[in-house]
C-alpha cells in the first residue's frame, strides 16, 4: 500500500449546483431522525453532525438501530420523521436517489457484496457505470484504487479466490470509486479476522486523513474507537457522545484538492 493517497482519491469540486438546505455546511447533518418498526421507535429523534473530513464511529448494542441509521443515511430506507442532509443533499426529500448514491456517498457493507464472477478490477468498475468516465479511465481509476488499498497485484482475481480482508478492501475501493465526499460503513469489520479488521480500520483512517473523506462507520469493533475522531453511542433511539480523542493524537486532515 502506498504511503500517501494520490490525487485520484481526492474529491473534485461539487459536480452540480445544489439547492441550499439547512445543514449544508456540515458533511452530514441529521435532525430529529425517527424511524419506527411497528410500535417500536428504533430511532427516536436522532441528532448528529459530522464536519467535512471527520471520522466518526457509532457503537451500540445489537438491535439499537445502528444499521437502520446507516440505511437512512444511504437513502436505502425512508425516515418517519426528521431530516438528513449529506453533502448538501436533503436525503429525506430525495425521490430518485440514484445520483446521490453514485456521487455523494460511498457505501461499505458488513459482507463485501462483491459480484463473485467479476474480477476485483471489474467489481470496482461496476460503480463507475453511469458516470462520464470512458472505459479506459474507469479501468485506470480502478487499478489505482486497488493499488491504494494494497491489492494492485490482485486486480484480476475474483472474490472467491481472495481472503475476507482482501474482499472488503475491494469493496472499499468500489465505494470510493466515484470520489464520494462521505463514506458510510455498516459493520465493515464484522466478518473479518483481527489482522484484516485492523487493515480495514487503518484504511478508513487514511481515507479520512489523506483524502479528506468524511467517514461514518457503525461498528462494535473497539479498533474504531482508537482510529476515529469521535465515538458515538446509539442506545434507546438516541445518539450520545461516548468518547472524543484528543486532536493531537490524530493527523490533521488534508484540505480537499482544488
Amino acid at each position, binding site marked *: 500500500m502506498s504511503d500517501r493517497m494520490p490525487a485520484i482519491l481526492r474529491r473534485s469540486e461539487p459536480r452540480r449546483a445544489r439547492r441550499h438546505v439547512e445543514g449544508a455546511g456540515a458533511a452530514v447533518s441529521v435532525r430529529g431522525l425517527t424511524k419506527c418498526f411497528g410500535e417500536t421507535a428504533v430511532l427516536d429523534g436522532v441528532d448528529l453532525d459530522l464536519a467535512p473530513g471527520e471520522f466518526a464511529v457509532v457503537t451500540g448494542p445489537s438491535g439499537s438501530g445502528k444499521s437502520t441509521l446507516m440505511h437512512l443515511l444511504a437513502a436505502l430506507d425512508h425516515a418517519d420523521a426528521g431530516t438528513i442532509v449529506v453533502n448538501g443533499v436533503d436525503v429525506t426529500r430525495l425521490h430518485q436517489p*440514484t445520483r446521490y448514491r453514485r456521487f455523494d456517498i460511498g457505501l461499505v457493507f458488513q459482507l463485501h*457484496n462483491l*459480484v463473485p*464472477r467479476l474480477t476485483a478490477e471489474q467489481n470496482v468498475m*461496476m*460503480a463507475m*457505470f*453511469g458516470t462520464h468516465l470512458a472505459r479506459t479511465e474507469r479501468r485506470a481509476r480502478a487499478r489505482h484504487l486497488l493499488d491504494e488499498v494494497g491489492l494492485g497485484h490482485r486486480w484480476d482475481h475474483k472474490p472467491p479466490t481472495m481472503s475476507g480482508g482482501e474482499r472488503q478492501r475491494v469493496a472499499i475501493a*468500489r465505494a470510493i470509486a*466515484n470520489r464520494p465526499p462521505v463514506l458510510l460503513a455498516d459493520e465493515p469489520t464484522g466478518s473479518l479476522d483481527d489482522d484484516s479488521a485492523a487493515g480495514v480500520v487503518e484504511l478508513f483512517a487514511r481515507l479520512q486523513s489523506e483524502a479528506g473523506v468524511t467517514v461514518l462507520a457503525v461498528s462494535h469493533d473497539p479498533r474504531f474507537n482508537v482510529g476515529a475522531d469521535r465515538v458515538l453511542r446509539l442506545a434507546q433511539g438516541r445518539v450520545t457522545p461516548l468518547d472524543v480523542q484528543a486532536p493531537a493524537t490524530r493527523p490533521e486532515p488534508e484540505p480537499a484538492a482544488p
Partner: protein
Amino acid sequence: MTFLGLIWHNVAARRLRAALTAGAVAIAVMAVVALGVLTSSLKASATGILQVGNADFSVAQKHVDNILNSTIAEGDIAAMGKVPGVQAAIGALIELEKYDAAHPGVIQVGLDPAAQRRFGVVILEGRSYAPRSNDEVMLGYVIASALHKRVGDPFVIDGHHYRVTGLYRTNVSFGNSTVMFPLPELQGRYQVAGQVTLGFVKLVPGASKQAVRQAIDQRFPQLATILGEKDYGRADQTLVLISAANTGGGILAAVIAISGVLNTSLLSFFERIREFGVLRSIGWSRQRVIALVLGEALVVSLLGALVGLFLGWAAINVLQHLSQLRGVFHPVYEASIFSRSLYFAFGVAFLGALYPAVRAAFMSPLEALRRE
C-alpha cells in the same frame, strides 16, 4: 469493461443455462423460418400456376376447396375471348397425378399447341405434341432431368403410355416441373370433356385491367378473376388456411421461446437479487438494471436466432427432399422471413425478460440486500 462487455460476461458466466435458453429460442426461430419459407413457397407454387402463361390475370371457379378442382367450360373461355379489351383467352386443364413413389404429385397440364406460345412455353428440344394426339407428351426440362427423360423416350403415367416429343421451359420456374399433354387427351383421361381448370386472359394493349375484370366477373358470376395472391382466396381458401397455420405455428413457437427466456430470466433474477440490491445501492439507476437484464436476454435470444436460422435452412432442405413435396415445393427464401426472425428474437427477449427486469429494478435495495 464496457456495459456490453458486462452483459456478455454475465451471459458467458452461465453458459449451460444460456445455451439451453438459446436452444429453446433456436427451435422457435427454426419453426418460424421453416413455416415461413414453407408458406411463402407453397403460396408461390399456388400462385405460380396462375402466373404461367404471361396472362394479365387468371380465371377460376369460385369457392372451390382446391383451385385444381376448378371447372370452367371451354365455351366460357371462348366467350371471354370476345369480351371488349380481351386480346386472347386460353384454357388449361390441370391435374395432379402420381408418377412413381419418388414423385407422388406430378402436375399435368392439358393445353392446345396453338396456345403454347401465349402460355409462355418455349420449346427447348424436339417439337410439340400434335393437337389431338393420344400418345404424345412434352416435359418441362426440370422434371425431365429429375426423371432422366429425353426426347423420344417413353413416358408412362397413370397406366397410359406416351412418347416424349419435346422439352420446354416456361416463364415461371414452377412450370418447368410440369408435364404437358394435348388438351383433349387429358380431358379424356379424366372424363372432363369440354372443360378446363383455369382460364388465362391477355388484354389488348391499353385496356383497363380493372374494367375487363369487372366485365368478366359480371358476365360469369360462377367464376372469379384472380390478379395475384390477394385474389387467390376468391377461388381457393388453401392459402388462407396455410397462412393461418403459419401464424398459429409462429404463435406457438413464440410461446415456447418466451417461456424459455422468462424461465431463465426469473431464475437468474432470484439468484441475483442481492447483486441487484448492491448495484442499486452503489448508484445504478433502475433503467440501467433493466437494460442489463434485457440485454442479457437479448444476447441469448440473438444467439438462439442465429442457430435457429441455420436450423430453419436445414429443415427446409430436408422438406425439399421429401417425396411428398417434390415438384410442388420450391423453397422461396424471402429477406422478410429472416428479418422477421430477428424481430422475433427481439420480441422474445423483451417479453421474456421484461417482468424479471422490472422486478429487479423496482425491488427495494434494502430488501434485496437482506436476501441470502
